[in-house]
């Protein structure tokens, strides 16, 4: 231990894993038990002037550590051999293949050490411990090798970049796992008949390929469609009102729209249930558990978000365009219709489609309003109606395996709908190449003019 110059040590119930830099520039990973006896270890060699780096290992393992071999001669700094430290400009932000190799090698080494230590010698506390230990070891290895190559400042940059990248990865991994899990569970039993049948005559516990979700798909489309019909004109007009007029009502409208966008969706459903379905104003038969009530609750959720996003999009339209239009004598209405809305078209479309994607998967407002149904009901204004989220929510909670499997099929279809809406939104919102309507070339004018004159 004494010959180790800089090192970090990870303590595990008395046993230690150390990563250390030795005076000759090599990096040593060692596992030491409570009595100070080494159990396993690996040495990443110094970055010598020539020769392939080779890892010297002890213990039952192989090492694939690649390090960037730098061709510049070693420079002696303050009596100490700074091995491989280049005199060239350091570019720690630049990742050469050798750097990537170094990271991968460190990760592999760390994985081996973790596997050996936690799986062979001790009982691992769990997957998260393995993962954290592996991550810390990898960072340590990268830090010390990069420090050897480029000095502490650049090494810190490397490690920070790695941490930031891992953070981004941490966001991607659950997303992929979620999509993968639902597809794996649901896709094998997805048959075409799912789109043509409802759950009529399907006994609980019958195979998941039997029956289908037609009633749920129809319900979802109808409810989302009605909500869209309500929200689209109101939301866009309100956003135009907020942006393009000088009314003194704009401030209260904006405040209340902002406030209502924080309304929890379950409260929207509860409100419709309490105010319309229980109270039945005017004793109208419309106010009962049906798809229309669900659509009302959904539009309560959708209206504030769509209004706000369209408002933001309209705000991005440059004032110069508006002023030019008004200066040319166009009315305000004409300006909005011909200038502002076309300019903001892709943004408005994206806002609306994303709002739609959100309510298609919204379950909470439906619990109190559409009530669910196992049979096809095409009339949204009468009788309870099923919808996809409802279908999934109800079925996956059932104890029977085939029933919950049927729920997963619904989840796959729901994901596919959301994904396609999402793709449409991305496609509509893509940065468009400016359509250049080139004026007639000047030469053209010239020839026509001369032609006329001649």
């Amino acid at each position, binding site marked *: 231990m004494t010959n180790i110059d800089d090192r970090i040590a990870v303590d595990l119930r008395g046993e230690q894993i150390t990563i250390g830099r030795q005076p000759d520039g090599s990096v040593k990973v060692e596992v030491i038990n409570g009595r100070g006896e080494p159990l396993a270890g690996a040495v990443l060699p110094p970055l010598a002037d020539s020769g392939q780096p080779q890892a010297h290992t002890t213990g039952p393992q192989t090492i694939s550590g690649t390090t960037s071999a730098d061709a510049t001669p070693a420079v002696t700094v303050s009596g100490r051999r700074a091995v491989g430290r280049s005199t060239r400009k350091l570019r720690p932000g630049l990742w050469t293949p050798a750097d990537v190799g170094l990271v991968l090698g460190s990760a592999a080494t760390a994985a081996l050490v973790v596997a050996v230590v936690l799986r062979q010698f001790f009982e691992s506390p769990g997957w998260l411990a393995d993962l954290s230990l592996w991550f810390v070891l990898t960072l340590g290895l990268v830090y010390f090798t990069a420090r050897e190559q480029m000095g502490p400042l650049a090494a810190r940059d490397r490690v920070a970049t790695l941490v930031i990248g891992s953070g981004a990865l941490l966001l991607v991994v659950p997303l992929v796992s979620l999509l993968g899990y639902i597809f794996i569970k649901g896709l094998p039993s997805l048959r075409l008949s799912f789109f043509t049948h409802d759950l009529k005559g399907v006994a609980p516990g019958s195979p998941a390929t039997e029956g289908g979700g037609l009633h749920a798909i129809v319900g979802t489309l109808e409810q989302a469609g009605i909500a869209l019909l309500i929200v689209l004109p109101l939301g866009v007009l309100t956003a135009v009102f907020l942006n393009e*007029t000088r009314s003194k009502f704009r401030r209260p409208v904006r405040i209340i729209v902002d406030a*209502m966008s924080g*309304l929890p969706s379950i409260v929207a459903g509860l409100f419709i249930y309490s*105010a319309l379905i229980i109270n039945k104003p005017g004793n109208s038969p419309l106010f009962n558990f049906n798809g229309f009530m669900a659509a009302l609750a959904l539009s309560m959720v959708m209206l504030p978000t769509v209004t706000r996003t369209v408002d933001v999009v309209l705000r991005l339209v440059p004032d110069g365009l508006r002023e030019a239009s008004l200066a040319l004598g166009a009315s305000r209405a004409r300006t909005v219709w011909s200038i502002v809305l076309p300019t903001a078209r892709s943004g408005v479309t994206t806002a609306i489609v994303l709002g739609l994607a959100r309510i298609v998967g919204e379950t909470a407002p439906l619990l109190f309003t559409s009530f669910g149904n196992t049979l096809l009901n095409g009339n949204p204004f009468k009788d309870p109606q099923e919808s996809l989220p409802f279908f999934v929510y109800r079925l996956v909670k059932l104890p029977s395996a085939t029933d919950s499997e049927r729920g997963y099929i619904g989840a796959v279809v729901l994901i596919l709908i959301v994904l396609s809406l999402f793709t449409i939104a991305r496609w509509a919102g893509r940065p468009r190449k400016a359509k250049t309507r080139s004026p007639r070339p000047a030469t053209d004018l010239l020839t026509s003019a001369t032609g006329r004159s001649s």
Partner: protein
Amino acid sequence: MSGAQMTNGLSTRAATKLRERPGSKPNDPPTVVDQVFTGFTRTSGIIVLGLLVLIAVFLFREALPAFREAGWSFFTEYRFDIGANNRKPELGVLGLLLGTMVVAVIATGIAIPVSVLTALFITDIARGRARQLMIGLVDLLAAIPSLLYGLWGFAFLSNYIPSVSEWTSGKLGFLAVFGVKDGGQYIQSYFIAGTVVSMMTLPIITSICREVFDQAPPGEKEAALALGSTRWGMLWNVVLPFGRGGIIGGSMLGLGRALGETIAVSLLLPQIPSLSVHVFEYGGATISGFIANNTGAQGLTLAGLLGAGLVLFCFTLITNFLASIIISRSRSGAGVDA
């Protein structure tokens, strides 16, 4: 003197008279089209205003019986008994509120570091394709329905979290919050619910952070690099300090989102309100999840649920309001729409 006279003279000799008096409005009346346009937009604005105000007022009116019945104990009682089998319902929102807070805090606590790192990755590290891909993935994360998160957490993640809970609880069990009673189960805990809800708060925190980091002044970033700072040095000394307001504001918006999360939580928690919080142990309830698990409520119970919903709404409102103030006050957040 003469200069002033000159300008006076010039101004009186201005070309054409534009207006009768300075400050008066142009006297040409708006065209019919414009009147219709103004009328239409104003009507829709007022309809939206009216509708939303009406909803707020109705919500309060419908919840009033519960407040009247329970009085102040509505806020100090932790039990919320829906009064099955003709028992008198007992209405208290404290236990639910506490659970909601715990889930939201755990969720935001997990989400903040991941979001900030992802935002930094998108603004300053990734280039070209990778950058576009990351932006798309964050948007996709926001588009996935919360039901599917709940499903994933319920069926998949619940198999992996309890071992972590058990180990952590074993190490930190001397603190009551982390402790688990003998024989207690580690499934359906606040921790699992918080982990899943954190996935749903990620996109909003990330996108606010990203907008704010994007607005860090390029001059100062370049100055830091020109003075020999590494990229990390630049991020640490320029981008992060500038983005602090955005990080705080975005986190509060994420908190607001986590407070209202319903379906995932209703799948992941048993919805038993209680005053003692053990984050790793089976048990817990949140307002929205509790409402979702009590469909078909009637009478006083319904009023109580509406009251609980109203309390939740108020909390979300306050959180979002504070967040937008923080974001708009922070220098970095100029022009960010919370």
